[in-house]
Structure formats: structure tokens, C-alpha cells
């Protein structure tokens, strides 16, 4: 097992957001976390990458507990984080944004996937090469989203946490981004994706969790998700 989240409880100041969340991700798998606005999906990812420290529970990555480590330490164990709102460095060029993804010093060892380099990124995603000298602020939403994923790939992660990658993108662009994620998955990187739109996610993800009010209410593959109509009605957007 690559990642195992065990019964975590996370807070913002005093407000209790995650109430015992558990999930697991196997090597080579793409898992999708679904749920309505404000249920704690982003908080779950932030807890894994260490931006928020869970007060209870454990998060095992390749068997080692991540709780209590700083984000940069967690990133160096081989986890890439792509937050919501894209968060590219606006005043840096595309090329510089990619350079920021290279992990100084200790990169994760024993990576099963292929090693990414800047040349390889440009070959795989030619749109980024066209924009290499442009400032992040001047890229379109779709380009920014591609850049955040590519930037994370530069650190050769074994697992990517990605938060609502298609949010605010036109359907065609959203499809490009999901295709990109499929490519990344094929390259051997595992993915935990947060999404609101299960119809798009079902084409790329293998397994699903549904969250509501800080707890997991459903776990299953695409077929199980399609069959669980009541749960979809209760916990997802219609």
C-alpha cells in the first residue's frame, strides 16, 4: 500500500473539520475524493501534505508516518501537491515555475515511475514549451493547471495529490487536463484527486470515496458508484 490515512482528525483553530477520515491508495492507482462544497476534501489533502497537522490519527506513506512533519519534508518523501486555485508562481516564467518543482537535495528514491526532466515535460506537453518564457500570470486557466501538474512532476513524485483540477475550466480544456492526468498515471505515478464532478472523474479514476461533513460515507469503484444512486443523490451535486 502506498498511502494509508487512518482515522485522522483535523482542525482549523478550534473548528473540528475532519472527523476520523480513513482512506488508502495503492501503487499505480488513481483515487478520487468526491463531495459537496465545504465537506473537508481540501482539508484532507492539506493534512496529507502537512499544511495542516492532524491532531489524531496517522498517515502512512510507504509505511512511514507523516504526521508532524513539515510540508517540505513530506514533499521530499515523494508526494506532489497541486492545490485548488492552481497557485502557479505568477511572477515567474513557465520555465522558472518548472525549475521550482525540482527538489533540492533529497529526491524520493526507489521511484517506480519514469524520471521526469524538463525536456521530457516539454516533449510530453508541447503547449508548455510554447509558453516557456511567459510569466505565470499571463497563462490561461488551462495552461496554468497543466503547469502546476508539470511542476509537481519535476520533483518525480510517487503520489500526486490534486485538488479540483478542472474547476473553472471549459469542458474541452478540462478534458485536456484529465487526459494529462491519465498520461501521468500511465507513467507510474499514483494520484489522489479531489473532484466535484463525478461524471468526468469516472472516466479516469479507478476508485472513489465520498465525503460529507468531514467523514467518508462511501468507498467503491466506478461501477459501485454508478449503482449507489441514493448516496450520489444525498452527497453529491445533482
Amino acid at each position, binding site marked *: 500500500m502506498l498511502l494509508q490515512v487512518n482515522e485522522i482528525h483535523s482542525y482549523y483553530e478550534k473548528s473540528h473539520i475532519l472527523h476520523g477520515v480513513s482512506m488508502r491508495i495503492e501503487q499505480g492507482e488513481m483515487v478520487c475524493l468526491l463531495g459537496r462544497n465545504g465537506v473537508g476534501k481540501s482539508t484532507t489533502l492539506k493534512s496529507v*501534505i502537512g*499544511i495542516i497537522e492532524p491532531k489524531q490519527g496517522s498517515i502512512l506513506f510507504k509505511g512511514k508516518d507523516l504526521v508532524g512533519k*513539515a*510540508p*517540505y519534508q513530506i*514533499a*521530499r518523501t515523494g508526494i506532489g*501537491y497541486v*492545490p485548488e486555485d492552481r*497557485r502557479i*508562481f*505568477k*511572477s*515567474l516564467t513557465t520555465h*522558472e*515555475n518548472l*525549475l*521550482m*518543482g*525540482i*527538489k*533540492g537535495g533529497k529526491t524520493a528514491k526507489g521511484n517506480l515511475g519514469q524520471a521526469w526532466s524538463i525536456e521530457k515535460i516539454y516533449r510530453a506537453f508541447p503547449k508548455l514549451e510554447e509558453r516557456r518564457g511567459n510569466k505565470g500570470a499571463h497563462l490561461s486557466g488551462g495552461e496554468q493547471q497543466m503547469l502546476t501538474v508539470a*511542476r*509537481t512532476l519535476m*520533483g518525480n513524485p510517487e503520489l500526486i495529490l490534486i485538488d479540483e483540477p478542472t474547476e473553472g475550466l471549459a469542458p474541452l480544456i478540462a478534458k485536456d487536463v484529465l487526459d494529462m492526468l491519465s498520461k501521468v498515471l500511465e507513467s507510474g505515478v499514483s494520484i489522489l484527486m479531489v473532484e466535484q464532478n463525478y461524471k468526468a472523474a469516472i472516466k479516469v479514476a479507478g476508485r472513489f470515496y465520498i465525503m460529507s461533513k468531514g467523514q467518508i460515507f462511501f468507498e467503491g469503484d466506478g461501477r459501485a458508484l454508478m449503482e449507489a444512486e441514493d448516496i450520489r443523490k444525498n452527497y453529491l451535486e445533482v
Partner: protein
Amino acid sequence: MGEIPVFFLHGLVYAGLLFLVSSGLTLVFGMMNVLNLAHAAFYMLGAYFSYSVLNITGHFYLCLIICPLFLFILGMLVERFLLRRVHVYGHVQELLITFGVAYIITESVKWIWGNYPLGVNLSGFLTGSVNLFGLFYPVYRLFMFFCAVFISLIMAMVLYKTKIGIIVRASVDDTEMVNALGVNVPVVFTAVFGFGAALSGFAGVIAGPLLTTYPGMAAEILVDAFVVIVIGGMGSLGGAIVASLMIGELQSFGALLFPKLSLALMYMLMAAVLIIRPSGLFGEEQ
């Protein structure tokens, strides 16, 4: 005759000095969201140390190296053992602790060197004048200006051509993201804070022989540097350059034309810029 070019050059020299001080202030603010009130105290310490090092060794050039190095270390210690400890409590506490450091430095300076102005006496080549197109201008002021330009160029090289520079600029944009990409951000903070202190100290060293070295010199330049980073846009180095030039020239010509109003002019300029662009000339729009 010849007054205007002279005051123009004076303005450039002061702009160089201001940029050395305000670049560290704006970088630290951009990255850490802390307005470092001790920043000008580092500048003053640079001047005082330089006074003593010069007295002991007799070599001004030595001061240019030793004093910034000392402030680099002092700055890193302040960040690592004071600022970082109060970071979790929020910005007000951070601001307060930098105020405390500034206060301690100012009082220590009075205690060690006395509460009166000191003159730094140079000798040799730096004390002369040169003939610039028929205009005699002090070598020392030119030397100050070239120091500032030289350091700014090195800084630009580092910021735009090295990975460390990219990390610093990225941290000004979004520190949390830099952290999540595997960069040890606290170490970057310590280094940048120390570097800013060193730059400020260097400015103090070169300011010493021209402006008087006295315990009020910190408060004096802090006001100007603060106006510079507000006008330029908090966190923007390009903005700091442009605003330093504006304030340098304004101060210089203000002193020539409206000696009583030069401070008011500066605030008026700041207000005008903020009305047109609330985040400063080169600041990121909120």
C-alpha cells in the same frame, strides 16, 4: 551655475543608498509578511561598527567586508531565535519583536558609542574630487553610487539567474506552495533575513563617512525606506529601484528648492501614488 546637475547626482547617490536599505526590507516583507522595524537599526549598526573597525584597523575597505558579514550573522540570529519563535502568534507579535530589537540596538549604540554624532574620517583617494565634464564632484559620493549599482547588479544576477533566486522570488509569490514543493522555507527565511540585514549594514558603512553617524540615523532612513517600499509596491524589487530614484531625487531637489517642505513633498508623492495605485507602482493587485 551647475547646481542642477550636482543636485541630480546627489539624488542618485541617495537613491542608491535607499535602495540598498529598502531592497532587504521589501524582500523580507514580500516573503514573510513582516515589516522589519529593526531593518534600519541594522543600517545604523553597520555605520557604528565601521567607525570602530576603521579606528582599529585604519582600513575602510575592510569595513566594507567585515561589517556586512557581522550583520548577516546577527540578522540570521534575530530571525532564527526571535522572529521564528513568535511567528505562530501572528504578525502583530512579529512586528513588536522587530520593534524590540530596534529599541535594544538603538539603546546599546548610545551606551557603547555615546549619544552624539561621530565623524568618520577617510583618507587618500576617496576624499578627493573628480572633474566630471567640467563639474567637480566628490569621489566618495561617486564611490557610494557605484557600490550601490554593483551590489544591485549582483543581486539581480542571483535573483534572476540562480535556483536560489528563483526560490526567493517564488517565496514572495507564495511561500506555502514553495514549502509544499520540497523547499525548506524556514531556512530560506533565515538566509534572506540575514542577507537583508547585511545589505542594510553595508549601506550604513558607506553612509557613515558622508552622513553623520548618530543614534537617530536609523529612524531617519527608516521613514524614507518605508515610503520607498510603499510607493514601489511591497515585495517588489523593481518597484524599490524606481521608488528609490523618485525619493532620492525628490529629497535632493526638495532640499534645494523647498527646504522646509521636502518631507511633506515625500508624503504627498506617496499619497498620490496610493490614490492611483493602492498596491504601489509595481505591487500585486489584491
